[in-house]
């Protein structure tokens, strides 16, 4: 396994009360024709929120679709909630206990918000009509759409549709919740509401959150997985990921010059990332330059810094050119 595990070995999963992980993956390979989207992923997941980070095309969505039983593995073993999704009967059982918000969900535009959730609730086998409608109302209230329950989906804004999709995924409080870019289009208030909802659910459920919103990961996740090229390149807690960046993040008043990963901050200063042993960026000897003009000041790294160091700088993406 190529992942840098900072936690408890494979997956570092917090085990479920029964002791077994909710998700167990061994040697998962998924190919689309000649392209390999997942390349030998090993993973155990338990209750709590796990964040999936990675660049576009890293394999996050493919991994979620495999867990959601939407895609079959090309090779490897997948066990979701103790069941094998390759077997039809077990796949059905998994789907009963699953909440899935796909990336860019498309909803039938002529449904009302209530109608859409009611439809989803029927598909999720949620009780009789009265109980189901109560659950639908609860879902709408959870995402702040109760007042728009009679609005057609096509009349809702992008953010509202996203919230509707989230409400659909949360219906019935699933045991495994898979969220692919759930906070796209949400305003700050709704993002906070979303975090509260997911945190609440994650007490008993396993939540996997694929996102580019580092703040969401920082706020929500007990565990972070970084994917790159279909492989897990980091598996640990957000704190462990941040620790990795300590001593590699600086700020200075002027541009550090060509060859540095740096970007301009709102106050005119530059944030500079350095990688130990890369031969780029200021050497440790020159680093503690004090606060004078042109001097590099070491600063506390953020999760974003750590993520960029893990993915962007390592791969020589030329971030400084984008940032200028």
């Amino acid at each position, binding site marked *: 396994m190529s992942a840098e595990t900072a936690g408890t070995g494979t997956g570092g999963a917090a085990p479920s009360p029964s002791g077994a992980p909710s998700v167990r993956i061994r040697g998962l390979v998924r190919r689309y024709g000649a392209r390999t989207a997942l390349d030998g992923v090993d993973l155990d997941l338990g209750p709590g929120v796990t964040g999936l980070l990675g660049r576009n095309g890293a394999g996050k969505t493919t991994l979620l679709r495999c867990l959601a039983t939407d895609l079959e593995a090309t090779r490897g073993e997948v066990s979701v909630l*103790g069941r094998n999704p390759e077997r039809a009967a077990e796949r059905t*059982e998994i789907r009963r206990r699953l909440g899935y918000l796909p990336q860019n969900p498309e909803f039938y535009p002529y449904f009302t918000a209530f*109608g859409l959730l009611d439809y989803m609730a029927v598909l999720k086998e949620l009780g009789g009509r009265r109980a189901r409608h109560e659950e639908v109302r609860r879902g709408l209230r959870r995402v702040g759409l109760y007042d728009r329950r009679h609005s057609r989906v096509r009349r809702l804004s992008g953010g509202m549709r996203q919230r509707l999709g989230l409400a659909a995924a949360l219906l019935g*409080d699933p045991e495994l919740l898979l969220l692919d870019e759930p906070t796209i289009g949400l305003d700050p208030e709704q993002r906070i509401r979303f975090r509260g909802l997911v945190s609440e659910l994650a007490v008993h459920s396993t939540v996997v959150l694929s996102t580019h919103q580092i703040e969401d990961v920082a706020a929500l996740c007990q565990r972070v997985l970084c994917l790159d090229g279909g492989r897990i390149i980091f598996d640990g807690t957000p704190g462990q990921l941040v620790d990795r960046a300590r001593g590699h993040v600086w700020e200075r008043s002027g541009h550090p010059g060509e060859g540095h990963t740096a970007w301009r901050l709102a106050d005119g200063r530059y944030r500079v990332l350095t990688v130990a042993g890369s031969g780029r960026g200021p050497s440790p000897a020159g680093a503690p330059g004090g606060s004078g003009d042109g001097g590099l000041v070491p600063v506390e790294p953020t999760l974003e810094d750590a993520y960029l160091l893990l993915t962007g700088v390592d791969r020589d993406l030329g971030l400084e050119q984008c940032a200028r």
Partner: protein
Amino acid sequence: MSGAVTGRGGEGPGGGPPGAGPGRPRTAAAGSRGAGPLTGSALTFGRLSWFTALRLLVSPFLLVAGALAVLMALSTANQPLVHTRSDLYESAVTSALIVALGLFAAVTFPAIREVRYGRSPVGPLGRAGRFLAVGAGAALVGWACVAALLALDAWQYAGPVPGLVHPLSHLTPFVVVLVGPAGAMALVAWTRSYTPLLLIALVVPTYGLYTITAFDTAQSVDRVVTRVQSLALMAVDPFPVHSPGVPVLVQLYAAYLGLAVLGLVALALAATGRRASRAAALGTALVLLAGAGGTAAHGATAYTWGVPVSDRLLYGADTVSCRTREGVTYCPMPGYEPWVEQWHAVLGPVLAALPESAADDMPVVWQDSTRFDRDPAGLPPSRVVVYDVRFTDGPWWRLDILDGTARAVFGLTPLWESLCRADGQSRLLLAAWMAGLDPKSGDDDRRSRSGMFLGEYSPSQQDLEVLHVLLELPEERVSEVLRDHWEELSSPRGRTEELAGLLGIPLRGSPHESPAQRDWDRLLSGTDMAYHANPASGPVCA
């Protein structure tokens, strides 16, 4: 969390998996989650079907179609017909077709929902299952509509309704109504768009507008329209001969519809199911649709107009029997026995007006169908044909019986069998008199019918003048003369002059000239007939 929470539900057969630990709170709504995979999916299928059905019920397309179907049912009831069970069957099938058209439009939307927006696995039911559930919901709605329309008919036609209907044909409207949703599902599955609905929404009104306003203005367009129209009608009912009372025809139609509906559903699944099962679904669809086509081809060749349907093929054939009333034999089709008394109520007074010896010449009153050719099966050619359709807005059905009886009693061949002339023959005048001998008909109707009858046999001017007076004479006086002179007056040898002499009618007009238009106008004055007589031609009637 605002919802009520309960302990964890059952984990299905075999207990819970290790990863889904016990004791996890669940919402009350998640009650059915513990069901096994198959029972749970069946439950979801049922609930989704019900969900779809409830939404379809308020679809504007279905509401419009339902209103049209109700109007159709009401207008059928108000048609001037003696309603038969065959009429009710046809009304039900037509209403079912209207509902099917509405369902076609209404089902397009949930079908689009499943094929376009149903990619994510949101529950145990797969895409094909969800798609089928839409069809099942549509079927529920269609059946409910048909049942409601049948109930409306039952209310409208309370009491015994005569007619010939095989029990299986009661199911036909319930299958017909499925054609719409099945067609919509197949078209949506393959096109993944609203295009079929848009096309139909454009074509149907355009067709209606064209036929009302512009038909007969451009022959080439008319040909295309007529061709398309006949193809559409053939798709709905490809059998030239169709009757709910002939079991083999009912079975053929049921088989055709059943195979077509199943074929369309399989065709829809071939575009929506899992990749592995698509080829199988497509193969099944082709086999089923080929079966439907084969059934239609067989029915269209084996049972067509001109091929007589023997009585043993009729439903209730064991009850087919002729019965005699006062010397007149009546042969109704099964189910129409109550009409015998009504037929006899027409012929009874005529019998009373004729001498007893005339009873030997009375024909068999035999019922044929407007829906198929009933095989007379050895009955003598001298018979009066009555049909299974009877209008109530005039005396015509009674006069038709009298007309046929008069021709048979006096040995006059009907015009449509062979053209002959009987000018100067007393039997022609007596037959024309008898053809209008219906006490329930008004004088004008009787005069019209007698005049038309006479006109078919190239009468002379003199014949017309004698008939004019004959129709004014008391019935008893004519009967008296007939009783005494039946043999000679009813034979081809009897002459107009002889009859006129016996009745004391003065002879006017030429016996060698055809009546002029003014003569006809005088006979038919007061009626709404403007009759143009058959020109003198053909041999003398034997």
